[in-house]
């Protein structure tokens, strides 16, 4: 039991930090530009595939640095030549543009790398046991993922709170019009934020690819969870996104490890009409927990954990 708690907490925090790497970019982009970026998880997927392709040719460490930069550059291009174009048609068109883009990226990924998962492996230099606790080992690569995510978090925090551009970004979160009126080149800031957001998602993909499965459906299965994170955390709130990421990461990881069902608690005889529900284990419920949390949050506290904005 203790072992389950410790390792589930570790894995949950790790998953939460990965979620936050993507959710932070998503919520920044949404708060500043009003664009809900449907393609954000696609950048994560591209990160994983670029990481796979580059590490196959040049090794893991070059891909660790190059793949996120490539994805970030791609993100900046998408903003400059796609989003900025449809901006004049309104937010719905921007949203639909990213929606179509996500679809095309998934199709192209399938075309280039096939429908089946690719063989993206943990690099040999990180493929060892980090520590052993209560007879269970914990892989070093997971520790490396955790450290990368934490380093990224500190880096982001430092930029946002300690640099001039971070100051402008923060101001644009709450008062975008005023920032534009003060004479800052808001479109360029948008492009940079979009690019950095994409690069962060790409980095998450590069490091998550070997640990999870790198396949074309990884974007469409993760994307909705990211939306849940930023709604539950409260739109436009980075702290909220952080706590919501950790919450969802930990809750989902714990749920996966639990095999309890109603049948186990109250006996195998199910009351009429509840046949299916009776046999369902908590582990099977894990995929729907984030969405149930979303609905619950919207009923109890529509602004999310730490949000102040209504839309």
């Amino acid at each position, binding site marked *: 039991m203790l072992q389950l708690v410790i390792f589930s907490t570790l894995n949950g925090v790790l998953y939460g930090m990965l979620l936050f790497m993507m959710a932070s970019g998503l919520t920044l982009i949404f708060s500043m530009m009003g664009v809900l970026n449907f393609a954000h998880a696609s950048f994560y997927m591209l990160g994983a595939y670029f990481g796979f392709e580059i590490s196959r040719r040049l090794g893991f460490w070059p891909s660790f640095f190059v793949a996120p930069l490539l994805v970030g550059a791609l993100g900046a291009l998408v903003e400059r030549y796609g989003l900025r*174009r449809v901006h004049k048609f309104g937010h719905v068109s921007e949203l639909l543009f990213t929606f179509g883009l996500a679809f095309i990226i998934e*199709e192209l990924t399938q075309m280039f790398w096939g429908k089946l998962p690719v063989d993206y492996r943990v690099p040999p230099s990180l493929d060892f046991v980090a520590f052993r606790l209560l007879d269970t080992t914990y892989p070093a690569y997971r520790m490396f993922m955790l450290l990368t995510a934490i380093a990224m978090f500190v880096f982001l925090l430092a930029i946002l709170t300690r640099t001039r551009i971070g100051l402008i970004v923060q101001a644009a979160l709450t008062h975008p019009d005023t920032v534009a009126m003060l004479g800052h080149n808001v479109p360029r800031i948008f492009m940079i934020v979009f690019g950095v957001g994409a690069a962060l998602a790409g980095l998450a993909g590069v490091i998550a690819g070997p640990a999870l499965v790198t396949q074309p459906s990884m974007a469409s299965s993760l994307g*909705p969870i990211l939306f849940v994170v930023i709604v539950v955390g409260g739109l436009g709130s980075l702290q909220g996104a952080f706590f919501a990421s950790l919450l969802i990461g930990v809750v989902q990881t714990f749920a996966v490890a639990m095999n309890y069902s109603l049948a186990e608690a109250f006996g195998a005889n199910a009351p009429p009409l509840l046949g299916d529900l009776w046999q369902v284990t908590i582990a099977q419920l894990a995929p*729907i927990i984030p*969405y149930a949390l979303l609905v619950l949050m919207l009923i109890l506290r*529509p602004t999310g954990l730490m949000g102040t904005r209504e*839309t």
Partner: protein
Amino acid sequence: MTSTILRALSPWLLLALLFALAPQAFPSASALTMMSVMGVMIIFALSYNILLGQTGLLSFGHAVYYGLGGFVTIHAMNAIIHAKLNLPAPFLPLIGGLAGLAFGALFGLVSTKRAGIVFSMISLGLGELVSSSSFILRSFFGGEEGITTNRTKLAPFFGHKFGPQIEVYYLVAVWCFVCIVAMYALTRTPFGRMCNAVRDNPERAEFIGYSPRMLRFISFCFAAFFAGVAGGLAVLNFEIMNAQQLGAQQSSLVLVMAYVGGAGFFFGPIIGAVIMTFLQITLSDLTSAWQLYFGLLFIAVVLYAPGGVAGWLMLHAEAARRGELWRLAPAYALIAPAFAAGLIGAVMIVELAHHLFDQALDEGSAMRLFGVDVDAASMAPWLVALLLLGAGIGLGRLLWPRVGDAWGVVAARLNRAAAA
């Protein structure tokens, strides 16, 4: 007096005639199947547009109501067959509609609290919630293979057992016609107008005493009802229902149909449903990259024609009514070859790449492209494709100002005519 009534009725008579005579024009079995699917999709796309076009709510989970309507219909149908009740097939879509309405009311309570992007995210979340539940509630959703039924076992309706596809087509056509009329009538009611007000300016709608939230909720219920009807009809048509029908892919499909057709006009989604169903069925026979074409088409509409096909048609209809359409012809004739060249080049690149990456390992790099045998691994076809695409884009950019100029002239003349 009679002439105005006749004029108001004539589009509807024409539509009814179209529905009635379509099987005469396209009598083949595959055409009948396709037209039955089109009828179902028209209802589904129009129901979606009650949200997107009329109330300004962008939903990413509309297939939930289509699918749940279908599942309730199919279970009801099997129960009716089992109990030998005297309820024939034509009434079953109503069960789907009521089921859609019930679920719409339930989920609408949560999701219509907010409008805009938050609504979109909630609809996406609810869609995921329901489609992931389908893996848990297996006896209701039937797991991977879904639930099947047999429509001919239902009680006959005036001697018709709906075995042959033609009878199913007419069943779909009648339902489709009734739903089109009903949904059009809905847009003409004060309620429909208030929905437009909520879409355009919720604050002002509130000032004249309406609750935007209530209006959004009612409109959501209507949309869910008609989606449920479409789901029920789909069950009668396919005799199977599975969890894919309520997933993200089906929700995306209906969004693409309504948007490509043109969400700003009532008849837009009808065009969209017809075009997309036709493309889906014919393209999937021609090329395995058809989903990529769907995505590219959608992006092109978002980028260059946000009004959709209907918006584009209406623009030209106005010019045609004033007899100004011919002024556009020279510019269009100039740009058409560039457009065609670019399109062919783009299609060639997609097909070559698709063949090279997807099929070359199994089948070798030789392929047929536009009736010509080529080798996808050789330089020549790629050069031709790039040349065509480049020429298309270059010429298009060069000639596009002429189209703009022609439109400028036409618009100025239309304005003058309107002022006079």
